[in-house]
């Protein structure tokens, strides 16, 4: 019998550039908080999500290193990595361990420390989320694919470059209210269009900033609930899927991994997106439009026309403005939705609804994951 899984507590640091802190110190900062609030007496497993620990931090088996540093050994630990969606993958694993009865309480840590190296080194390693033997070695990087997709989108749906500035403008505005966001300033249409070209037609302000982040979630079974003082939110389901590489796709404007994951989720749960708080993976603004269209929130080629009306999507500022500390991003998204649907609040932000849906993916939807949360009394 599958058991229920709850989020008992969360904690995060502002996404930022922490030049004077190591990944261990950044983790320590968030962990004390969650253990004190979580009220659990023991932890069965610790799962660490990180993308570039081997290349940027030169560290393998980072979860064991963290157990040793944090004084958490002998608790067993894992490191999970599935590209940019690693955070939700870690939660998926934690969810499964509790649902199956193998564990009652699991600490999930998302940690990414990128500012150890300049941008070119970070980008070189980030590009390895694509197929190294086929794509990366030919100098294809994630923004190159986003640029191809954006060009095709503009051509096919006759949308101007200017029209597609609505997403970053909105995200920067949203981030003003999120105390954990990396970029807390407004941008104008002109500022987006005049920012540096990353890969024509993608501008600097169409994409996420490089930053460090650390966020933690404490997951527990029903057995742990009565000991918990903070508010619990139920993890209803996590559904995930993979897709074909971009160069083998019949349709480059479709995100099939997301489509499949969503279909699977809908087969088990009724989801009314209008009454659900959504966090989507907007690593490039063009992906935000495609995700909104794939989820059926907007019709094809029309997502940009309704961005201004969206009051339940990426209130955090999204990857665009909250930031995208790769392996920690999924954990941030879940922490934010948890905070907004529970009475905890994200700064002053609260969402007056029961459900939250988090989407995380890697590259141009090479894999996609969806996590559905429900507020329970």
């Amino acid at each position, binding site marked *: 019998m599958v058991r229920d899984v709850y989020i008992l507590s969360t904690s995060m640091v502002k996404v930022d*550039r922490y030049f004077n802190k190591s990944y261990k110190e950044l983790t320590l900062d968030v962990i004390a908080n969650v253990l004190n609030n979580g009220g659990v007496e023991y932890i069965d497993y610790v799962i660490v999500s990180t993308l570039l620990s081997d290349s940027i931090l030169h560290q393998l088996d980072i979860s064991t290193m963290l157990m040793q540093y944090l004084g958490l050994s002998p608790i067993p630990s894992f490191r999970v990595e599935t590209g940019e969606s690693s955070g939700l993958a870690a939660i998926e694993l934690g969810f499964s361990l509790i649902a199956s009865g193998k564990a009652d309480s699991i600490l999930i840590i998302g940690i990414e420390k990128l500012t150890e190296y300049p941008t070119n080194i970070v980008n070189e390693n980030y590009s390895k989320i694509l197929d190294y033997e086929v794509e990366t070695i030919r100098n294809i990087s994630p923004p190159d694919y986003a640029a191809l997709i954006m060009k095709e989108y503009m051509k096919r749906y006759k949308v101007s470059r200017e029209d597609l500035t609505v997403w970053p403008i909105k995200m920067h505005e949203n981030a003003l209210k999120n105390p954990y966001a990396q970029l807390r300033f407004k941008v104008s249409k002109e500022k987006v269009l005049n920012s540096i070209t990353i890969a024509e037609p993608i501008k600097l302000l169409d994409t996420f900033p490089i930053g460090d982040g650390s966020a933690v979630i404490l997951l527990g079974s029903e057995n742990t609930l009565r000991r918990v003082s903070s508010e619990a939110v139920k993890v209803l389901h996590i559904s995930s899927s993979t897709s074909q590489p971009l160069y083998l796709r019949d349709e480059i404007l479709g995100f099939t991994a997301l489509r499949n994951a969503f279909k699977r989720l809908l087969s088990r749960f009724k989801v009314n997106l209008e009454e659900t708080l959504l966090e989507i993976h907007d690593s490039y603004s063009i992906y935000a439009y495609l995700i909104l269209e794939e989820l059926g929130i907007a019709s094809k080629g029309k997502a940009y026309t309704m961005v201004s009306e969206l009051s339940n999507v990426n209130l955090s500022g999204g990857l665009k403005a909250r930031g995208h500390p790769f392996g920690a991003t999924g954990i941030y998204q879940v922490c934010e939705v948890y905070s907004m649907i529970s009475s905890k609040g994200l700064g002053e932000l609260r969402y007056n609804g029961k459900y939250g849906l988090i989407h995380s993916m890697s590259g141009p939807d090479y894999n996609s994951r969806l996590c559905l949360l429900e507020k329970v009394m």
Partner: protein
Amino acid sequence: MGHTVNTSSRLEGKVGIVGWGVYVPIWRVKAIEIARMWGFPEELTKSLWIEEKAIAGEDEDTVTMGWYAAKVAIERGGIDPNEVGAVFVGTESKPYAVKPSATIIADALIDTGVKSASDIEFACRAGGEGIRDSIALVMSGMVKYALAIGSDTAQASPGDVLELTASSGAAAYVIGPEQDSIAVFEGSTVYVTDTTDFWRRDCSPYPRHGEIFTGEPAYFHHIISAAKLLFEELGLKPGDFDYAVFHQPNGKFPLQVGRMLGFPKEKLLPGIVTPWIGNTYNGSALIGLAKVLEEAKPGSRILVVTFGSGAGSDAFSIIVKEGIEERVKKGPKVIDFLERKRYVSYGEYVKSRRIISKIE
């Protein structure tokens, strides 16, 4: 930042600037041309605010440029060069790795051997250190005048973002007693830490840098720390200054750090020269200061904050005296050098800087 020994940042105007001079080579290369050459987005030149940079000609180097600026500084000060008791050359691009540049410049200007001379290396801040050392020598009475020079033919690896700004130029200041000075030092502070934001290892032809790390924890942290310390120790606030001049690796950073410290744009713009001549490294803040001295009215208070990677900043509060207009007229001005220019292509620039060379 507390002091355990009894030191003072207050100089009470006992020592000042007697004369100054600058040199900027005539040759310019447009930043957009460098950007196109290496495939940098053109918007980058706008976001850094760099339009063109000055390039030393084939017959110019740190010594020739530093000598010219020093000659003008002495002439403008109207002093006997033989009364200059110390010559400091702040540079990170010495023609000789071992052998002082300062002796070449000193002997080209001064007849007597009774003088001290040395090169100072602290990335772009060595010129500022030269001014501090000069102040100390003059105040102690060990020398009558000291010459502090900042001069560089800055190196940058072709294709590195640094190449958009790294340029050539020099500034020199004769530091002397109050009665001979046309602008006096009210106070000076310094703030130095071991911060490896930009460096060049021995035998490496070009420096390397930590990109964004050169900003926030390096440039901004050190300049703000030195400036705030100066405000605190002199009991001054940004509103008390008429001008603020900062080290300017590009046009954007000095505006940004000025804003962070609370200066309005109009107090910053007069001292900004980098967008039109590039980052002259040790000349950078000092050419900016010269430009401000050439525009300032008597009684004006000027804040100058240097920055050098590695990293450190000197902050100075300078008050301009009566008669500045006369002293300005006694030599070529910064504006003359800004207007005196001829454009070269990227190819001519790399040839004259010996980035490409032919085997003999």
